[in-house]
């Protein structure tokens, strides 16, 4: 299969089983899906479509947008983008996003991909998004006793730390 064929097959899969709207245009950062489809989609892609390489997971923090005039308000939330890839000729990267509320948790992909372990730990450490059923969700890059998550939008650059700042 070529890359274009894999792309269209991926979009068809999303429309058939994972609740993607028929007229959704593919955004460059990936389709926004419901969080409950996350693990099942990754499992289907790995076991039936050959997406065996776990590329990365990228979490981002979105601060609260207050409602103002015609602009609809949006509560504070996370977005987590996941990238899987086939190997060999005609390689294709499947990417999708899910939205996580601040008190929610996303299903961990560690049961499918062992390489997801540290990447999800990194996102938890820097952004603060929780991964459910992760075997070892500890800090990875910041010191163990660090308080807060540095890559969140509400993290002040002046925030200090013992004992050198």
């Amino acid at each position, binding site marked *: 299969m070529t890359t274009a064929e894999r792309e269209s097959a991926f979009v068809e899969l999303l429309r058939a089983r994972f609740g993607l709207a028929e007229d959704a245009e593919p955004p460059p950062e990936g389709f926004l899906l419901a969080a409950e489809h996350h693990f099942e989609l990754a499992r289907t892609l790995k076991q039936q479509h050959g997406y065996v390489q776990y590329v990365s997971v990228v979490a981002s923090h979105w601060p609260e947008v207050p409602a103002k005039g015609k602009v609809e308000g949006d509560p504070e939330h996370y977005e987590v983008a996941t990238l899987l890839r086939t190997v060999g000729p005609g390689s294709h990267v499947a990417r999708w996003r899910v939205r996580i509320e*601040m*008190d929610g948790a996303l299903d961990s992909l560690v049961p499918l991909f062992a390489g997801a372990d540290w990447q999800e730990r990194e996102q*938890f450490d820097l952004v*603060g*998004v*929780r991964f459910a059923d992760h075997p070892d969700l*500890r*800090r990875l*890059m*910041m*010191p*163990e*006793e660090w*308080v*807060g*998550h*540095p890559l969140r939008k509400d*993290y*002040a*650059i*002046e*925030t*200090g*730390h*013992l*004992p*050198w*700042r």
Partner: protein
Amino acid sequence: MAVDESDLPFEHPLYDLMAKMPGLDLATTSVDKLLNWGVRNSLWIFPMATSCCGIEFMAAAASRVDMDRMGTIVRGTPRQSDVMVVAGTITVKMAPRVKRLWDQMPEPKWCVAMGSCAISGDFYRDIYSVIPGIDTVIPVDVYIPGCPPNPEELMGGMLALQEKVALKRAGLRVPPEVRPETAKMIKPRVGRAEDPTREKLIGHHQALQARTLDLTEPADLVEAMTPKAAADGDQEGGA
């Protein structure tokens, strides 16, 4: 009790040995010169290379500049080293490790801060995870400015360190370079490692952080940073 030994002559266990051996005390002066020469020309380096300054350090140790010809052999372990060359940005997580390695080096030992990151943190100094200069953690003998300094400057810094070692072993005190305006310019918010006015535990920024986290008292922050409570704090921190 801390004693300021900076004005005292340098002591070495070999001196006792020489005093016990008959006839050898007559040659002490000559042997002392020999020892000084030996120590000055065998400053083995422990490279604390964390970023791009480490690349320049490698170039200085390679054949074109060949820093080894002045006896500065690079060792991979702190236990065999005399000089720690801190080459690169030191983060808050790395700083305790640097301190531990420094403590593992046998006396006498010296520290060289190579590059502006090791001197003051440079443009990373206001970032949450970078310490404002390695001299807030361990005492520094020679500063080599540059971003990064080229190998010749590192060579010059090691020559300056040799002079300092020679003066120190001769019992002479090395006067610090006093430039008040510069010292004020590069002064970190937290005092240097030997600064008596340095705050021990909680500073302004910790209190600021406590307010950011809606902790009512700074004592709550200390409690949150203890290892036992930290595990809970990690789970609760994102909410």
